[in-house]
């Protein structure tokens, strides 16, 4: 029992990171009606920027400054990507965005590789190696922070979309661009903002990832798992994305311990397939059947 609980808590922390990257997928799916396959690489780049600013061998800024600054920089990167590149695809088939973002992912990986190299690096944090004990369970502070930050960020995003003028405008634009235009929503500007936001959220995910292990330019491949999480949740739903992330995060270590062979590695995709077969719209489906 203790063992299971231990696995679940570690999985929960992992799942939060998947969930944050999945949130990025959902944000952009809502804004640009397409999938950003560079989402995982944005996470990676964000983590490296934080590392480059904060680590003592690099720029050596305090952790509390390096991380927010990295978030701001990646907001700018996301915003700029929409502004300069994605906007040109307006009106093109969704597939164009898929190819474009896959290519963008390669570029991000190359940029990170050429600046920071391909040897795994460790982000220096004030709470590295700190643990807490409760009962027979050991919880690392990094795990607790990952869970706490994800919770706060999710609530903040929810409040942003539910209550602020700009958040409501973003929701409107994601539901119907034409209608959003005619009530006065600057749809293009809102889309840039959402891309910026998804860059910022990805960075938070990346930093949390980096607090729990070494990073290299290929960690962005985690994005594929996070994509599965977003699909499980129903691609258009923020809480769904988080839930999908948590499900995958918990299943992986539990399956790794109790299931045979390589099942743990397949488990996220098996769950995704199961969800797609039984509930094609995802767990939090926003697509309703049309009455005929």
């Amino acid at each position, binding site marked *: 029992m203790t063992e299971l609980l231990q696995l679940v808590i570690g999985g929960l922390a992992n799942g939060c990171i998947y969930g944050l990257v999945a949130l990025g997928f959902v944000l952009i799916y809502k804004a640009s009606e397409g999938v950003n396959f560079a989402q995982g690489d944005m996470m990676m780049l964000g983590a490296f920027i934080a590392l480059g600013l904060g680590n003592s061998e690099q720029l050596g800024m305090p952790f509390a400054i390096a991380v927010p600054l990295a978030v701001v920089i990646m907001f700018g990167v996301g915003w700029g990507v929409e502004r300069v590149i994605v906007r040109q695809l307006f009106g093109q088939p969704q597939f164009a965005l898929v190819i474009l973002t896959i290519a963008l992912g390669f570029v991000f990986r190359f940029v990170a590789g050429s600046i920071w190299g391909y040897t795994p690096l460790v982000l220096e944090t004030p709470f590295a190696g700190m643990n807490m004990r409760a009962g027979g369970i050991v919880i690392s502070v990094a795990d607790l922070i990952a869970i706490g930050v994800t919770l706060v960020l999710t609530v903040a995003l929810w409040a942003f979309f539910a209550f602020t003028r700009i958040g*409501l405008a973003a929701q409107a634009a994601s539901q119907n661009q034409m209608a959003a235009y005619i009530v006065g929503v600057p749809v293009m500007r809102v889309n840039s903002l959402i891309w910026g936001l998804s860059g910022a959220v990805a960075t938070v995910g990346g930093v949390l990832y980096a607090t729990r292990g070494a990073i290299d330019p290929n960690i962005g491949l985690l994005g594929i798992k996070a994509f599965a999480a977003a699909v499980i949740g129903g691609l258009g739903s923020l809480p769904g994305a988080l839930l999908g992330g948590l499900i995958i995060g918990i299943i992986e270590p539990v399956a790794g311990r109790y299931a045979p062979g390589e099942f743990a590695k397949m488990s996220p995709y098996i769950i995704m397939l199961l969800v797609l077969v039984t509930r094609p719209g995802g767990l939090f489906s926003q697509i309703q059947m049309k*009455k005929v």
Partner: protein
Amino acid sequence: MSLLEVNDLAVHFGGVKAVDGVSFSVESGEVFAIIGPNGAGKSTIFNLISRIYEPTRGSIRFDGRDITGLKAHDIAKLGIARTFQNIELFDHSTVLDNLLMGRHTHRSTSFVEDILFLPKVRREERDHRRHVEEVIEFLELEAYRNKMIAGLPYGVRKVVEIGRALSIGPKLILLDEPASGLSVEETREVAFWIEDMRRDMGLTVLMVEHDMSLVNQVSDRVLAVANGRPLALGSPADVQAHPDVKAAYLGTEAA
């Protein structure tokens, strides 16, 4: 001075002249209808006025101001609202939220004020809700207030779209085929609303419509167009009696 002045307006898509040299002006307080066969360019004129299409030639002035260079999202702020032939609503939101979205340009609170939910935000929110409730009452949408758009019948969605346009608080409302797909009874209701919009709300109405009984009942003046070109402009009776208009509707070439 006219509220809306359209001057030598044209838009060409490749070799297709969707609108080609259309001029008209709509007076304040007037109900003005544009009629014409399918593909005549009526909805295209609307899309030009609401700045969704870029005109190839010509100008549009509203309230004494040239709006030809403005963006689609600038139009609501000036006081121009519209509906669409194919209904463009926020399908996964309630009727109330759709109407409240019409208040977007009237919201003046900042991001920080919104997050803190300051008294100013609450006061403004109350004003918007009061405004929207008036629209709900006017269009008799009370029963649907909290229903999702996606589950509503066609006729109701059409009315909700008019409601969202009214929530904007416009001076000019563009109605793109308000009666299409509606029953005779529903059409009669639309006619009453248009008359009330003009009389009680002081609105100017520009509409595209095929239903000639509705056109005859509510419009002061009618512009007939065919193949992107103007055919006749005048009272409903005069325009319908015009030989070119008759020819256009019967499908024979006027020439």
